[in-house]
């Protein structure tokens, strides 16, 4: 074999040189690990959130090339992107659904860290910056869907500005300083905050929030990207109605991450209390949770009160989020009755969630302890912890080839769909391509690690046998015999041949055989 990919010459050598140069930079302070096998994505939800942040940064930067942050042009420019610009539909949907994915991943990330008690052991600062980062993420998403200046955005901007004004004493000043005085200012200032101020704040918080050990799992990142594109293909985001000051807007609700707060505001109680104070209380209690939680253990099962509060908050978030969305479809009822949520009913439900949450937690802990006890009893027959792909080398290779062929087909399908104007189908196919790549990469890395981890091939026993018959070898053998001082009377040289462990699994299939004829290239075999 003349060609080998093991050599580091030319461009490859240059990139390795660059990579080694990174050693002198700050980046080596962060330990990136690229897992060689499947690991649970719960552990690196934060990294996934950051990956989506990067996707949003790229797609948002592209949208900035066409978007015009002007009162009478904003909606039209978005429509131009959506309908006229080639692949503008794709970019816009990736950006929109990416923002939803980022908020969702951030919330999941927070709750996973909450239930697994990761904010302990000197991680308090990480936790607190994380909570603030989550709040800024939601503000970022909120300013994002407002700069379209559709009907819904206009209503949302109005609510944001009036809520800011409702802050006692300093409210109007903050409103004037941060949001300006009218819709024209709001659109421009929301834009400035959306594309610059808030992302800069987020990057600053991230610098504090990032732990030193990061997991970058390629298949999972690609799968999240694929999920965003597929969602965009199946549920493409519409334009909404352009805001016309002379046309009264219809009934509308905010994005799903704000309907919880919206439900509180729909109880008709004071807007500062419902729209700002309650969310602020929730955020502050989240920030303070590491100092409230005095349990010595980490697992959610060992921290029943904290877990119960977490479950209760989750239940309340789900209920309020749905309630904020729900508006009775019966148009014969007066609008005010459809929109206003009975505060007594609403707050009673909120309070009812507390004993329900505690009861549910108690039940879950009981069940989990029982399950653990049972699994300890039946440990030998328990499920395997490490997932393996039980396929031979040959079939894994064919699987990779088949997936590549499928990728080729999907590529053609996606491009064809884009050519004939079926934009969402094309977006859907590209999402599938990313998902298939996730599966492909998983099989690829598994097979690569199998190849690396396979036991060394058996030494060729047959070739050594004639050596023993030679005179020099026999002298050595006799010396060896003396040294070993074996009086058992086993003079047969065959038995003294170096014992080779019989390879059990892959080695006899030829996996891991060092087929590389480039002698001395072993030092280049670094992963």
């Amino acid at each position, binding site marked *: 074999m003349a060609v080998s990919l093991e050599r580091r010459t030319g461009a490859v050598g240059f990139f390795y040189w660059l990579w080694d140069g990174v050693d002198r930079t700050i980046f080596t302070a962060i330990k990136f690990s690229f897992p060689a096998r499947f690991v649970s994505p719960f552990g690196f939800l934060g990294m996934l959130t950051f990956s989506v942040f990067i996707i949003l940064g790229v797609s948002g930067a592209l949208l900035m090339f066409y978007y015009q942050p002007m009162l009478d042009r904003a909606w039209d420019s978005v429509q131009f992107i959506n309908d006229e610009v080639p692949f503008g539909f794709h970019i816009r949907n990736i950006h929109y659904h990416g923002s939803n994915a980022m908020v969702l991943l951030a919330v999941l990330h927070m709750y996973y860290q909450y239930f697994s008690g990761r904010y302990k052991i000197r991680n308090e600062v990480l936790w607190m910056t994380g909570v603030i980062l989550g709040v800024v993420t939601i503000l970022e998403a909120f300013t994002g869907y407002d700069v379209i200046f559709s009907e819904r955005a206009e209503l949302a901007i109005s609510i944001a500005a009036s809520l800011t004004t409702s802050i006692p004493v300093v409210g109007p000043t903050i409103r004037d300083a941060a949001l300006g005085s009218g819709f024209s200012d709001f659109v421009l200032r929301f834009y400035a905050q959306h594309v610059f101020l808030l992302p800069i704040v987020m990057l600053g918080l991230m610098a504090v929030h990032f732990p030193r050990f990061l997991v970058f799992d390629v298949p999972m990142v690609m799968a999240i990207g694929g999920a965003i594109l597929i969602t965009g293909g199946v549920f493409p985001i519409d334009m909404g109605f352009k805001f016309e000051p002379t046309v009264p807007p219809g009934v509308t609700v905010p994005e799903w991450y704000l309907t919880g707060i919206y439900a509180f505001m729909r109880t008709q109680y004071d807007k500062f209390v419902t729209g700002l104070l309650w969310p602020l209380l929730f955020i502050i209690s989240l920030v303070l949770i590491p100092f409230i939680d005095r349990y010595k253990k980490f697992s959610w099962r060992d921290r029943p009160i904290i877990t119960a509060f977490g479950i209760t908050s989750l239940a309340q978030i789900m209920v309020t989020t749905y309630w904020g969305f729900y508006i009775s479809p019966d148009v014969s009822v007066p609008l005010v009755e459809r929109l206003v949520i009975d505060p007594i009913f609403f707050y009673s439900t909120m309070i009812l969630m507390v004993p329900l949450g505690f009861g549910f937690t108690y039940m879950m802990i009981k069940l989990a302890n029982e399950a653990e006890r049972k699994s300890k009893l039946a440990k030998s027959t328990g499920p395997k912890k490490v997932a393996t792909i039980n396929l031979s080398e040959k079939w894994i290779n064919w699987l990779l080839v088949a997936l590549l062929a499928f*990728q080729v087909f999907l590529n053609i399908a996606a491009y064809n769909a884009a050519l004939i104007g079926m934009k969402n189908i094309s977006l859907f196919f590209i999402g599938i391509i990313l998902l298939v790549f996730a599966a*492909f990469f998983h099989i690829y890395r598994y*097979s690569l690690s199998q190849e690396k981890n396979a036991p060394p091939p058996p030494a060729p026993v047959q070739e050594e046998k004639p050596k023993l018959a030679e005179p020099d070898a026999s002298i050595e053998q006799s010396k060896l015999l003396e040294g070993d001082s074996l009086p058992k009377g086993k003079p047969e040289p065959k038995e003294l041949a170096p014992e080779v462990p019989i390879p059990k699994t892959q080695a006899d299939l030829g996996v891991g055989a060092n087929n590389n004829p480039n002698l001395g290239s072993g030092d280049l075999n670094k992963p």
Partner: protein
Amino acid sequence: MSELGTKKSGGLSRRDFLKLMGAAGTGLAFAPFVPFGNYMPNPNQASLEKVPVILPDGTQANINTYPINHAEVITYPSTGDAALDAEAFRKWQFIRLPEELGGGKKDSNAIRAYSMICLHLWCLWKYWPDEGRKRGECPCHGSMYDPMTGTAFVGPASVQAAPSNTLPQLTLEIDSDGFVFILPPKFNANDNGVIGYGRFT
């Protein structure tokens, strides 16, 4: 393959095979994003049609009233969007030639419409009707254009090779009442020229 595994001779090693597959898979996964590059050029919004020549005062140019040895700035193709119409690349010098160059005639030979983008470094030139000038002059590097042909005769634009020494031109038509119209142009070097690049005479 399983039997031959250890005795493989020639061909790819398994590791190399996997690496090639990995590279191909990565390439295929990111290939669909290559056409996204079409996002960057702004799709042209205005259609090229026969339209009347509208002067800055809002009226249509008429050969019977338009002064001899005079120039105005006209917009083509006009989009109706004030911001887009302000673009220099849509601006043309609408010139009625001086008397001695045939500007007194009542036909389309008396008028010209040249792109205002200088062919040198894309500054905006303009027509000077003063006695002794009667030519297009670029304020940046002094290129001068002949109002008859649109060809530069002095300055850096004049030393550029054809077609980059002759301004793009709109084809004009005059109806029986004397009103001036722009005929749909073909923006390539052999016909009406390419704005900022030039035209073969």
